[in-house]
């Protein structure tokens, strides 16, 4: 089974989802990301879904899981590029993707991540409890 490639960009992991994923592929991505966060000591994960034309409840759950798991591993996740039709459908479905931060595009997503990473660095190790 092919796997979705994960790119490393400094302390960030970048994922671009371009295929119509079947459930196993999505779960594999979930596993691969958590593993890479630990392996690469990543502090941020950026998931680009601008090519995803369908986000159903399963994918929504996977995105939510990725956000939650990364947070446990002290990394922030941002999902970017959700298409308007997808957003409208998710709202109708009743899925709000709690705990998932979103941004319009990769540029803004990186900006968002670097802001929260900076705040963390400024806080220093003793103040790790305070999140910016």
């Amino acid at each position, binding site marked *: 089974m092919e796997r979705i490639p994960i790119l490393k960009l400094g302390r960030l992991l970048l994922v671009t989802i371009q295929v119509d994923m079947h459930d196993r592929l999505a779960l594999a991505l979930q596993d691969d990301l958590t593993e890479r966060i630990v392996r690469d000591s990543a502090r941020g994960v950026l998931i680009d879904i601008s090519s995803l034309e369908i986000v159903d409840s399963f994918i929504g759950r996977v995105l939510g899981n990725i956000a939650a798991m990364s947070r446990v591993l002290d990394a922030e996740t941002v999902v*970017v590029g*959700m*298409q*308007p039709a997808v*957003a*409208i459908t*998710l*709202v*109708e479905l009743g899925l*709000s*993707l709690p705990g998932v931060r*979103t*941004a*319009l*595009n990769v*540029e*803004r*997503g990186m900006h968002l991540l670097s802001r929260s990473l900076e705040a963390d660095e400024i806080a220093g190790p003793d103040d790790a409890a305070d999140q910016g």
Partner: protein
Amino acid sequence: MANGESVIAAVVAEHEQRLMEEWLREQLSATTLRRDLMGDAELRQQSADFLGRFREALQAGGAADANASAWADARAVLATVSRSRALKGFSPGETAMFVLSLKQPLFTLLRERGDDPERLVDEIWRASVILDRLALHTTELYQKSREDVIARQQQELLELSTPVVKVWEGVVAVPLIGTLDSARTQVVMENLLERIVQVGASVAIIDITGVPTVDTLVAQHLIKTVAAARLMGAECIISGIRPQIAQTIVHLGVVLENVTTKASLADAIALALKQTGFAITRAGAARG
């Protein structure tokens, strides 16, 4: 004994050229001709196309039923004719005359065969039935084309009447004006979300100063739009809520939690700029 239908087929095939000329003459002398809308060359082309398909369909033996597959090509030509006339502004009657004016020349040819009166009546009747059905078909196609045009214009009106404007870097605003119905609100909201992507906006202001009343359905659409924008990574501010609308919203039990509201568009813009990291200072003030 040749039956009425194959007689018509034979007559049309044998005298196609003459039928064509006489039919054209009928059309060109008719009071329903619209030279202002269509040139003679085009008329000749349409007539030739139709007559050819008409003959073929008759020869294929499908005379009785204008809906039979033998008539598919003829109906296709009529579809093109109806659509083009509908777009050009012909009336439905003027469009139907295209087919109906073929009757007189065809009857003349049938009469000239010298068949006995009873046979002649039968042949003319059959010819009339076929042409009437085709003329009716033309009218139906015409209607459909007009409806398509109206639907498209309505859509365009819908989109033009509520433009989404870029207020500043990363901030868009859509001033809603007039009564909102469910369909219109949906279109506006879809446009807003598209524009948010195009402009790269992180804040969208929905101003309803110009909206006299809001019902539950519209309020729900607004809330869904705010939720969808948030999922995409943009925040919405709803501004210009009149006292009456505020009352309606409360009475209807609509819950606006997590939705930022501002009384005026000005306040909303100020907030949006602040949220996007801009500060406005007065020019010329002493800057140390």
